[in-house]
């Protein structure tokens, strides 16, 4: 017979007191060693601009429903959190129901006594039904990452996030301080897409919603470079990003012939129409 281990359920107040003690200690440490704002920003910038590869992991661009979604990545949020310091961050899946899972992340700025809780919901349905357990775990991890990013970016002031994010974008596009440099960069990016993926200028411009190459801005270039990175990483494909799905409605296909029965009422009605007796008055 199997041994049965009986575990006594801990009193909730004990758990609460344990957590409280840990948090109190962390707050005390944060107060004793406050962050150096200037150093936190400088260190973050140094890391994100360390090289092109690191900078390019700090921004994402994904085509969704005819638009391009772009913004700072989980990676950038983690770099910011590491250098910001005195942060307590948690992310976990809190519910999994029939169709969705919900992830919750909390970012607690121990120094300023500011905690922000964010929830992210993700569908766990596919065309063939509910995902298997492995896929639910993968989806849960992805939701945790997004919830954590959103929590961190809500706790750290927007001005600081933007400063570091813009530095990463500058590193990606290179020096575009004057029109000549911007034009040269546009040409380089467009030529790169054309030669590598056989894309027309029109297809590239459609993604950033611009009518002519002269209207492409630095931010548009970041979007395009981000898409290029997503294609390289396998997160999207050239067709998904630049050639949105066209309907197959007009395409001829081989179909099984349909056998149609005719009811008597219909036959009588058609015969009446053919006699011409009921001509239009």
């Amino acid at each position, binding site marked *: 017979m199997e041994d049965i281990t009986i575990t006594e359920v801990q009193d909730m107040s004990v758990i609460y007191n344990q957590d409280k003690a840990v948090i109190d200690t962390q707050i005390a440490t944060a107060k004793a060693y406050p962050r150096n704002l200037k150093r936190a920003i400088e260190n973050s910038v140094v890391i994100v601009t360390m090289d092109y590869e690191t900078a390019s992991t700090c921004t994402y661009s994904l085509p969704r*429903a005819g638009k391009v979604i772009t913004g700072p990545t989980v990676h950038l949020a983690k770099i910011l959190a590491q250098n910001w310091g005195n942060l307590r961050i948690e992310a976990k899946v809190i519910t999994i*129901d*029939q*169709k969705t899972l919900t992830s919750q992340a909390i970012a607690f700025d121990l120094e300023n006594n500011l905690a922000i809780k964010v929830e992210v919901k993700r569908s766990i*349905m596919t*065309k063939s039904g509910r995902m298997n357990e492995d896929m639910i775990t993968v989806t849960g991890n992805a939701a945790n990452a997004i919830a954590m990013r959103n929590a961190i970016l809500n706790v750290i002031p927007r001005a600081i996030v933007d400063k570091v994010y813009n530095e990463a974008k500058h590193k990606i596009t290179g020096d575009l301080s004057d029109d000549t440099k911007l034009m040269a960069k546009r040409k380089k990016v467009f030529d790169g897409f054309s030669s590598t993926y056989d894309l027309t200028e029109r297809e590239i411009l459609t993604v950033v919603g611009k009518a002519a190459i002269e209207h492409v801005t630095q931010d548009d270039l970041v979007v395009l470079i981000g898409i290029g990175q997503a294609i390289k990483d396998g997160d999207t494909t050239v067709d998904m990003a630049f050639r949105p*799905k066209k*309907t*197959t*409605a*007009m*395409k*001829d*296909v*081989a*179909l*099984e*012939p*349909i*056998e*149609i*029965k*005719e*009811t008597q*009422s*219909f036959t009588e*009605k*058609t015969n*009446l*129409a*053919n006699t011409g007796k*009921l*001509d*239009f*008055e």
Partner: protein
Amino acid sequence: MVFIESTLKKTNMIKPEFVKDTFEEYLGKKDHVSASDIKNFLKSPRYYYYERNEKVEKSTGRHFNIGSGLHELILEPQLFKTNYVVYPKVDARTKEGKQQIAEFNETSGGKTILYEDEMEMIRLISENALKNNSLVELMKDSHREVSCYTIDEITGLKIRLRPDILSSTKSTIVDIKSCLDSSARKFKSDVFTYSYSLSAAYYCDFIGRENYIFAACSKTAPYEVALYGLNDEMYDYGREQYRMGLDLLKFCQDNNYWPSYNEFELLKECYSLGSLDTYFDTLKDSQLITIL
């Protein structure tokens, strides 16, 4: 042939039966469930039951005559004269107008009356429709207004469908919709208002076609006609909706239970949580107040 066979295997779909019958015969098959029935049911089972079994007077407003007349003129012009007749516009609200229409009805042989201005509008819309090359291409080698009868494998419910245009050479169904404004923005709003995504998924899945195209015909000058298709998310949503509708309709039929709005919200919640078997127990303990 290849597509149909692979689709049937994939969804284990029962092969539908196609019948060329009259619209009245199609509507008369009350034991079959149409996409409109599912939409009524998803409003509330009580409403569905009322529409099917209790409603005495069916409202046939002018818009209904215009819509059906437009369908006939575009799809089966040879039958148009058999079913429709044009009459000078009268005010049907007045005693005199009512009498004129009643007298005319006696001699018209049961034809549907279209007023002169309505006929002119229908004529202009159909002219524009037939100038649309893509629509004409889809109408070539197609079956028009053919009824389709099949069975839902999961619930065993009988299903009825009547595609406006069923192409023989393309995996496409076309639905002609008359609307006040056929612009993309307004029609997208109609898709949500009238649950067109449910219709699209219902027809594609039960007939075994890939595409459902709406031919939106504007009833206001210059009577523009535009073709629209739905994105994958819209199909998925429609599929999810009709599946829930059929499953819950079966539940309501089996229990001869036709709940109203509050109870239906609870029923849908139990369905999404997979706990329909405990619905009636849950109902007893519920306050039946839906938070909006």
